[in-house]
């Protein structure tokens, strides 16, 4: 394909880069930690058993890697979209969407960070880090990179996520 494609990145999209969206509240519950861990196939009891987690020095059942809690659902509210695929609210001329990849970073050390455990209430704040356009085997595509920070009820930064969503 030699013809240059018109950019699909609008002024509205450019203006949204770096702007934090509304905060989302995620509840970290025992049952959800277990469900997530079970779906992955984890065998470590700290993801299932409170006594085992406490015996290893944790405040409670530990949130398995990649789990940051469950968004609070309210009927009639905005659809609860998991963080990885959130934030494709702009109108672009592409119909298909792929999750391009995700990186998680944890800050488990006191005093600034903490491990995420059942009973925590996490506040997630997301922003678009940038848009990129490329031409791949699937044709022209728009790659949106989003960054989310996760803070617990004590104000400690516990994790960050950086994810890409591909539209084509």
């Amino acid at each position, binding site marked *: 394909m030699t013809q240059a494609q018109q950019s699909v990145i609008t002024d509205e999209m450019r203006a949204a880069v770096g702007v934090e969206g509304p905060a989302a509240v995620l509840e970290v519950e025992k049952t959800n930690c277990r469900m997530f861990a079970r*779906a992955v196939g984890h065998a470590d009891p700290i993801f299932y058993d409170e006594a085992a987690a406490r015996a*290893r020095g944790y405040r409670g059942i530990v949130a*398995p*890697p990649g789990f940051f809690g469950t968004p609070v659902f309210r009927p009639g509210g905005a659809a609860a979209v*998991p963080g990885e*695929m959130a934030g494709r609210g702009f109108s672009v001329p592409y119909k298909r969407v792929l999750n391009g990849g995700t990186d*998680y970073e*944890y800050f488990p050390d006191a005093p600034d960070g903490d491990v995420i455990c059942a009973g925590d209430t996490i506040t997630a704040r997301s922003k678009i880090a940038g848009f990129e356009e490329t031409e791949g085997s699937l044709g022209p595509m728009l790659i949106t990179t989003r960054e989310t920070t996760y803070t617990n009820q004590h104000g400690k930064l516990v994790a960050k996520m950086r994810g890409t969503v591909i539209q084509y």
Partner: protein
Amino acid sequence: MAQVHFEDITEGDEIPQLKKNCSTQQLVQWAAGSGDFYQIHYDKDFAQRTGLKGLIVHGALKNAFLGQLLHDWAGEQGQLRRFGCSYRGMDEPDQDILCRGVVTKKYSERGKHFVELDIWTEKPDGKKTSPGTALVTLPARS
């Protein structure tokens, strides 16, 4: 399993592999556990209408498999600091997904012992479908 220590490992070492094979039931469990209810992962007709051959495994589940690979390797005294991957290729249910990791760098900083790794999932033919990187801290013997 015995605790791995910082002194035990060398750059270039491969960590113990983790083999996965998702049933469609596991994909539904993951949908519920993660909140990702996109139908290409459990509704074959829907998946085929979008042009896929059939159901595919969630990228985020493969990422979580890599999280398990690292968590299990780091042991009780290790700590997962960073991990992630790109979703480059599709995996199907009822097919082996091999999770692997190789140590690329080790260093100590402010009393902590860090290990960087290349991680990935691969199909039975060896094709890497989810390449990524990770950072783990391990305990030291001394």
